[in-house]
């Protein structure tokens, strides 16, 4: 077994990404949506690392660092919004906050 073919790494990333996406689409609770977002971001980071390792370049991991900071920033803002949502609408159901509609 002489190493992991890059394609498998990417397949893993793709699967994780799709699961995150599916979670984002069918969960109505905002927490789960944020979690799914985190999963998707994590999958993206994984893809970077796999690519970086495949070409033996450090940029992959450097990019991973950025992905993590982005995830952190996004999580904090997301949770602040979640907090407001809960206080204002007394529920975590994302569909109640549908004021902006045509």
């Amino acid at each position, binding site marked *: 077994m002489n190493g992991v073919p890059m394609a498998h790494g990417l397949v893993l990333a793709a699967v994780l990404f*799709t699961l995150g996406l*599916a979670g984002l689409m069918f*969960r109505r609770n905002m927490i789960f949506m944020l979690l799914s977002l*985190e999963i998707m971001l994590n999958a993206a980071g994984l893809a970077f690392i796999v690519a970086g*390792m495949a070409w033996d370049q450090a940029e992959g991991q450097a990019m991973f660092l950025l992905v993590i900071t982005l995830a952190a*920033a*996004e999580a904090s803002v997301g949770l602040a919004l979640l907090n*407001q949502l809960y206080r204002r609408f007394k529920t975590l159901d994302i569909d109640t906050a549908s004021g902006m509609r045509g």
Partner: protein
Amino acid sequence: MELAFYASGLVAVLATLRVITSTNPIHALLYLIVSLLAVALVFFALGAPFAGALEVIVYAGAIMVLFVFVVMMLNLNAAVTARERAWLGPRTWVGPSVLAALLLVVLLATLQHGDIGRVIEGDTLTAKAVGMVLFGPWLVVVELVAMLLLAALVTASHVGRSVSREADSGRDGA
């Protein structure tokens, strides 16, 4: 090194699956942490110890703890999980999952066509090399990332302020 990769990959996928399908937010969170750890393990397997460490420390350690902290603060009772189960009726998840599956198939098809033959032997890429890159050509990017975090900090503090003082002024805005 391949065995570690495939095993932890499998664990990651299963944990993520549990995250999406679980009804209790806390359980979901914990499964997510397991999934992140599994991914960290994958990084180690692939020879990226610095990334793995980052994953464990920042991702699983910081962000997930933040999530747990917020969820605990909302002290959701049993009614929430019951309602979750109600919302998860077959009608809601069939459509999106078919869509996601279709997207997955398309992704795999493009991967399959992509004839990326390269193989990862597992020889490690040291943190030094990453550091050289980060503070070499990518210096500007690191600065930008810092500003990003600062912006997130400001936003989170403003939006997240406690409702009491904001209650009177915010009421009309809703």
